[in-house]
């Protein structure tokens, strides 16, 4: 499943909107039962139930990711692993419990809830259309969902930009190695590329669904196509997960070696201790991050080649024209380096 880390410096202490918005994206490609609903219409309570399940799963996953990282990384001598484990558990509980209480107490649907709802409805409608050949509900949902795809990806992109921006501030304020900024930018870039690719696959699925509606496509063909898409996405999703875990590892390592007391551990920081971070393990994590991002990049090239599509998110096919003058200046900087 596609997720964006909540443990990057920017997201510390709260769940980014993108988490709840992008989590269910994977399930659209190969219709399967997400929750056991008999009806297509979901009410607020049912949606809450699903969101709570997602939050519980995320809570458990993040907790385990942290504990596994602590087992392998170098912990500063002024902390013990038990102290680090306890603090991590408390922080994860606090963040997710707050989100769980907020979800339980919410009375109205938020924008992200509506997106989630539409995704669920579409999954369900595809199933119904496949099983019963009823296509009327599907048509309405496809139109709604098309609009939401664009909003959803804008939200993800914004979140990623904000994460990168925060890392940029950390780099400048903390005097870290220049590699840090380079590799973080590459990582965010490849994740954005992945989401562009995902968007393109989603649009292919919707086109295929429209073909079914007009009678030009067959459900068998749709099933075959979505299965192939799902297989492609699965490979990239696993690579993205590796990348995100590496980013969490980097974040945790930076945090631990910049915290002098338990109270500071895993709390938001503006400045990191560059002297403590000028060590072999820090560079190892950075190099691993670079390696993982390049791995994912190569996988995206491979898939783009197979699909005979452009590699997504290059400035030649996705750059705002109003920034052309800045682009020229940056090109001159690059050329004179």
């Amino acid at each position, binding site marked *: 499943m596609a997720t964006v880390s909540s443990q990057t410096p920017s997201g510390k202490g709260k769940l980014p909107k993108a988490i709840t918005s992008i989590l269910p994206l994977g399930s659209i490609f190969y219709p399967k039962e997400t929750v056991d609903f008999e009806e297509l219409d979901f009410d607020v309570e049912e949606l809450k139930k699903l969101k709570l399940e997602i939050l519980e799963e995320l809570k458990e996953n993040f907790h385990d990711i942290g504990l596994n990282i602590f087992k392998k990384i170098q912990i500063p001598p002024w902390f013990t692993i038990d102290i680090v484990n306890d603090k991590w558990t408390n922080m994860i509980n606090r963040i997710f419990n707050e989100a769980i209480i907020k979800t339980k107490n919410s009375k109205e649907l938020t924008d992200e809830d509506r997106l989630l709802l539409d995704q669920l409805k579409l999954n369900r409608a595809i199933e119904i259309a496949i099983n019963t050949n009823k296509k009327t509900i599907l048509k309405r949902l496809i139109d709604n969902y098309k609009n939401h795809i664009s909003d959803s990806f804008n939200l993800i992109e914004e979140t990623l930009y904000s994460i*990168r921006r925060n890392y940029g*501030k950390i780099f400048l304020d903390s005097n870290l190695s220049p590699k840090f900024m*380079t590799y973080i930018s590459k990582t965010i870039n490849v994740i954005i590329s992945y989401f562009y690719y995902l968007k393109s696959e989603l649009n292919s699925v919707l086109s295929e669904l429209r073909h079914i509606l007009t009678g030009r496509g067959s459900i068998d063909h749709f099933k075959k196509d979505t299965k192939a898409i799902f297989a492609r996405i699965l490979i990239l999703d696993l690579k993205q997960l590796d990348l995100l875990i590496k980013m969490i590892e980097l974040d945790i390592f930076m945090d631990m070696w910049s915290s002098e007391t338990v109270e500071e551990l895993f709390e938001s920081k503006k400045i990191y201790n560059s002297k403590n971070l000028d060590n072999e393990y820090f560079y190892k994590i950075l190099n691993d991050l670079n390696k993982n991002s390049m791995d994912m990049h190569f996988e995206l090239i491979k898939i*783009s080649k197979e699909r005979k599509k*452009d*590699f997504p998110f290059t400035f030649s096919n996705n750059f705002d024209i109003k920034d052309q003058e800045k*682009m020229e*200046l*940056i090109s001159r900087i690059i050329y004179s380096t």
Partner: protein
Amino acid sequence: MKYILFDTNVYLALIFPLDTWKTIVEEPLEEVFDLIKKGEIKIVCPDFVFYEVNNRIDWTSEKFNEEFYQIYNELKNLNGPFTKNNILYFRKVMEHRIFTIKDTKIRNRLYYIESLILKEIKENPKLQVVDVLTNCIELFNEINVRLVGEYANYNIKYEIDKINFPKNKENDPEFIKILDEVKKSVNKEADAKIISIFIYFIRENKAKGIVVTHDFEHLLLNSIALEAIFDDIFIVRPGYVKCLIN
């Protein structure tokens, strides 16, 4: 089947905006595009070139980040937005930095960095000094790392395949023999290795090959000597490719 190998500098010219060689290296690619589509020729690229191109993108980014941090460090204590006083201080800082640099290339780079910051200031006059600078470093890195994608798109468009050359093949006596011969004419270790991998590859495939480069100093000046030893390859400037294909 004929194989074409592009030297790292050809790829860099293709992907780096404003590179003076850009149009010169793009032209032969377009000229042979049809033949690539028909499968009559194939562009190949050793892993080594692939990593060299990507390392160069990283290096460019790291140089910028290092330089930009120094500028940031001198400006970070300025309060508020870029008021007239803050701008005058910024100008002083930049002038001092440029004054101390003797290398024209680095000086030029600093001028462009200064212009980029000024552009950002004018676009966001109310933004805090540190935020303007954060915007600049973010934008630079974003654009620079997108070159990785530009490179990928050339690979997709021209159906460029990587040459699989595992480490253990470096110990193959045949490869060692080729490398030793190449090294007699090519001083640069990396260039010698790239050409040797290519020769080894085309011999394995019993084919002919063309190495395309615009590096006069290390490759083109020695091309005739190399071609006399290895008659299965040509080492040429981009403009010759079309002429030598048929």
